[in-house]
């Protein structure tokens, strides 16, 4: 239970601060005395937080599904021909800077939520794909043979042996992907997505440091909350299954 305390506390602080930012007006007025408006008001912080989270969750769900499916296909006998190319693409693709991928999505899909979702899915997929391949390829062949020898069908071997063993590494890939995507979604407000990046960008454009701070603090808190959530998930996973000796 103590494991879940930090993410829960951080989540409470994040939501509380998003809801009660206007209460802190005196503080921001002290930071930015020369501006009339010191609390960002072109959209409530709770709405921006919710939209930001929604973008990240959708892209993580679609990306995880696509990457795990792709990783499984590329490691089956039927798809093995594609394995070298898929793993090369997964590693070369991560060389592309996220901002550049985001920028390239705009000419194709226009402004708004569509290009950012596309870029987040595409970019978030790569670390998960790479870890799925590493997890599935890292399983000791003897384990697979033992499972087959016990009379399991290929599907059973996959679901009952391979995926549980590779799960921890796949989870680490999802963590990396979500961390990157929270940051990229924040930059997404430059292409018209409503996220917590909005106050930062608006503040930079108008020279209003108070706006910038409000956005930056909430983005940082969101990232910390998510990261500690994954930390707790990974610890729980480690406690439940400890695949000692099964990995090559």
């Amino acid at each position: 239970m103590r494991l879940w305390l930090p993410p829960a506390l951080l989540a409470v602080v994040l939501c509380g601060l998003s809801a009660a930012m206007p209460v802190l007006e005196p503080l921001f007025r002290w930071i930015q005395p020369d501006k009339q408006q010191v609390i960002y008001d072109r959209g409530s912080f709770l709405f921006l937080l919710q939209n930001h989270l929604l973008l990240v969750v959708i892209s993580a769900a679609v990306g995880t599904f696509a990457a795990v499916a792709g990783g499984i296909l590329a490691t089956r006998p039927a798809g093995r021909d594609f394995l070298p190319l898929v793993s090369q693409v997964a590693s070369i693709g991560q060389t592309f800077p996220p901002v550049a991928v985001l920028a390239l999505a705009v000419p194709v899909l226009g402004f708004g939520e569509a290009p950012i979702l596309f870029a987040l899915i595409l970019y978030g997929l790569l670390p998960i794909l790479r870890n799925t391949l590493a997890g599935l390829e890292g399983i000791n062949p003897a384990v697979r043979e033992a499972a087959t020898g016990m009379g399991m069908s290929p599907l059973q071997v996959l679901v009952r042996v391979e995926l549980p063993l590779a799960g921890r590494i796949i989870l680490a890939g999802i963590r990396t992907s979500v961390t990157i995507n929270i940051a990229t979604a924040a930059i997404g407000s430059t292409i018209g997505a409503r996220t917590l990046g909005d106050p930062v960008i608006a503040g930079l454009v108008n020279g209003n440091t108070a706006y910038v701070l409000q956005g930056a603090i909430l983005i940082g808190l969101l990232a910390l909350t998510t990261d500690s959530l994954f930390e707790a998930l990974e610890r729980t996973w480690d406690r439940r299954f400890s695949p000692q000796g099964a990995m090559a």
Partner: protein
Amino acid sequence: MSVTGPVASRIPPNRVIPALALSALVLVWLLDLGTIQPNRIVAGTGHGLLSSLGWIGAGLVTAVLAASIVLSMVPLARRYLLLLGLTGLSLAALPLLLEVFASRHLPEDSPYARSSMGAGFWCLLFLLSLMLIEILGRLKTRRSLQLMLLVFVCGSWLTLLRSDGLESLSLVREFNGQGGQFRQALWTHLALAFGAVSISAVLAFVLALKMIRNTAWRRPVLGAVSFLQTIPSLAVFGLLIAPLSALSSAFPVLQSLGIRGIGWAPALLALIAYSLLPMVRNTFVALTEVPESLADAGRGMGMTEGQVFFQVKLPLALPVIIEGVRITTIQAIGLTAVAALIGAGGFGSFIFQGLGQAAMDLVLLGALPTIALALLADALLTMLAASLKPTSARS
């Protein structure tokens, strides 16, 4: 190269290249190869493959793709070399398609008209690159050959893009319109990224040495640098503005040095903070993983501790340290683009200016060089790490 029974059975047909070439064939016929815009802002009209290149050009593209499908199926011993030549040449000659397109469709009388690459062209470029990666993987070529190929293709692109025939290409127009600013952006980008990487490399080296000597430093240092890495870049840039502008208004000396809330100072600080995690982790792991038996062997030969460190440990740890430098450099090149939001300059300023003006060609002029820089840094540092790897010292 005679095709005999046993040879044929030993060479299985490749299924990846036909799949890629077939998708390229379908997409290049379905999507627009290029568009013509009357000026910078007005939306353009698209042209398909046949309309863009005429029967001869369209036939040539189709023939090349069909030939690569056939080549990958036949059980020839040297098919991958032939495919490498075919794909490499096609990639290098790809801008010629745009030249033909521009010469056929660009109106003579309007000086502001511009041609740009359509979705079909991008798909063709992407799938041909995938085919090249697949072929290089199957041939198990050496890194130096891969780099030569990269230089050949990039060189051919740069030469063709500078030729008169492609002056109307929107990307070239945008480049010419920016004039000296492009070079300025390149230098700013390189200076920020490499400045941050070198400073953080020195810091990381000192921290790693501290962590090795003193185990009490390990957890707090690793915790701190991974905490920094978790905070999104936009937030770090934003959080640095207030303290730095307070500092610079308190100390006018800083102001005269150009250190303000926005600009290069917060950008460099944030980039260094980000670079620390991969640097510290790799340097620490690399130095601690050198087997103690090798250090002992050195001591047995009469080396001093300093000699053991510089002549035994450091050379063995170097490939892993360089790997850290590679990860850090790629990351820094990407983050420098984001730093344009706080006025640090670099290619990111084209990206965000272009997004602000809805000028997509300007966005491309910022995004494509950023990607190219990242890929180039990746290729060079991977090669460096591979060449430093001791061949027989590690087992």
